[in-house]
């Protein structure tokens, strides 16, 4: 077990003009750990995720990532080629809407193979075998490999997006509301799948969601955000079962019981 965190986030601040996007966020993420970020709409959780993934320029703070070759390195101050290389090898980003993360005019196999080809795979047969393997792992039948994502259901699109992201064996996955917009039974299957993939591959993940059930299932640790600040953090069960901050108490008590 390494004694170094995979991701070390220090003082991330993002302002939209005079309004706060997210402010002074600090946390560590350890290898194999899943961090959940919850909060209501507009609390800055997606902003934070986009800052961490390098999609949005931050106003202050550092994000250190344990790179394979050079150890801890501030990804926000990396050169762009380096960061883009990272984001198609060691990182993955699962969007809320599968359409944002997929190429809708390219077949399922092409979608899964794209990252492989981006890092230099040039053997059609091997790329295809790998794509079939990954489709099966996310429970898409291999006969669908040449179908376009437009022919897939919402749940299948989301699973395809996950396959496409995980095919290069990333070490860190960012997920923005991965189960949003799916009906509950599909959500449950997707969560099952995510949980087994995370455990199997030893992935570290940061999951942004407003669904407490999702973090209860997936996350080891939890951060609760409100108005751009982290108001409470800790082990998932601890935060959900014994909330300290009044907002967390409100959040937990707002969940409908069936």
């Amino acid at each position, binding site marked *: 077990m390494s004694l170094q965190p995979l991701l070390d986030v220090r003082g991330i601040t993002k302002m939209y003009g005079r309004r706060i996007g997210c402010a002074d966020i600090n946390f560590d993420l350890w290898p194999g750990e899943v961090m959940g970020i919850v909060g209501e709409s507009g609390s800055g959780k997606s902003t934070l995720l986009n800052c961490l993934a390098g999609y949005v320029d931050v106003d202050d703070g550092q994000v250190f990532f344990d790179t394979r070759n050079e150890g801890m390195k501030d990804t926000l101050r990396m050169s762009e*080629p380096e960061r*883009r290389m990272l984001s198609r090898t060691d990182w993955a980003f699962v969007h809320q809407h599968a359409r944002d993360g997929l*190429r809708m005019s390219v*077949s399922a*196999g092409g979608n899964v*193979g*794209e990252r492989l080809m981006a890092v230099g795979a040039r*053997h*059609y047969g091997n790329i295809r075998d790998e794509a079939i393997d990954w489709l099966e792992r996310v429970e898409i039948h291999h006969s669908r*490999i040449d179908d376009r994502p437009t022919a897939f259901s919402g749940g299948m699109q989301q699973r395809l997006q996950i396959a496409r992201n995980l095919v290069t064996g990333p070490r860190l996955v960012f997920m923005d509301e991965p189960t949003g917009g799916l009906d509950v039974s599909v959500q449950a299957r997707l969560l099952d799948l995510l949980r087994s993939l995370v455990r199997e591959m030893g992935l570290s993940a940061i999951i942004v969601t407003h669904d407490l059930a999702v973090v209860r299932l997936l996350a080891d640790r939890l951060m609760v955000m409100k108005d751009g600040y982290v108001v409470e953090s800790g082990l998932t069960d601890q935060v959900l079962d014994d909330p300290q901050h009044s907002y967390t108490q409100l959040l937990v008590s707002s969940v409908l019981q069936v």
Partner: protein
Amino acid sequence: MNEYNFAYLDEQTKRMIRRAILKGLAIPGYQVPFASREMPMPYGWGTGGVQVSAATLTPNDTMKVIDQGADDTTNAISIRKFFQKTAHVEVTEVTKEASVIQTRHRIPETDLNEDQILVYQVPIPEPLRFLEPSEPETRKMHALEEYGLMHVKLYEDISRHGAIATSYAYPVKVEGRYVMDPSPIPKFDNPKMEMSAIQLFGAGREQRIYALPPYTKVVSLDFDDFPFEASKADHACELCGADNSYLDEVIVDDQGGRIFVCSDTDFCASRQQEKKGSAS
């Protein structure tokens, strides 16, 4: 004043285009933006090629214009007449005699030499365009050499058709750096791009110029298990008997009759001439 300036364009414009051409030659395969002018012909008729030719021509040049290999099609004739009228240059149909050759969709069969310039008309200079609609994004991809997407296109071809079905505008990698659209020439012509003549590409509507200096390394993209193949119709030319030239399929009656003939009219005519000469 009732004369056109030499080759239609004013001198300042030609200087601007020449600068773009020189930059293109210095960075083979890189698309240089230039301030494309309105030309007295519609976009899609070779406005880019015409501007590049105009900036390249000197009064001593001999010009040849081909369209799909032929000297006698509308596009070729109108552009040839345009330069006859505005530049008073010699024109020819014989590939060997030309010093500047403007072409649409073909490379002449006859090998070109170091004293010649081949000017291509290009409709869409960006090889990544159909996969990535954003121009800032494609520029970034060129800058950072992120060309995985190009192979996604070839992958799609194989998965759908069992082979790389792209048969024209087949993407190439130039000197191991830039991926380039060779304009819609048949992939049969791709291997010919490593040649002794200078090759210039002009896209008028898209306002881009790019270039290949002589003897530049040009590699067609492919997969290890699906190598590039310079394909052509599996026939010999009906008129001259050549079996190594690119062929057009021509329908000759309404009974399903068809023949295959060379698309390069000069090449075909000169071979027929030779045959006649040796027969008599």
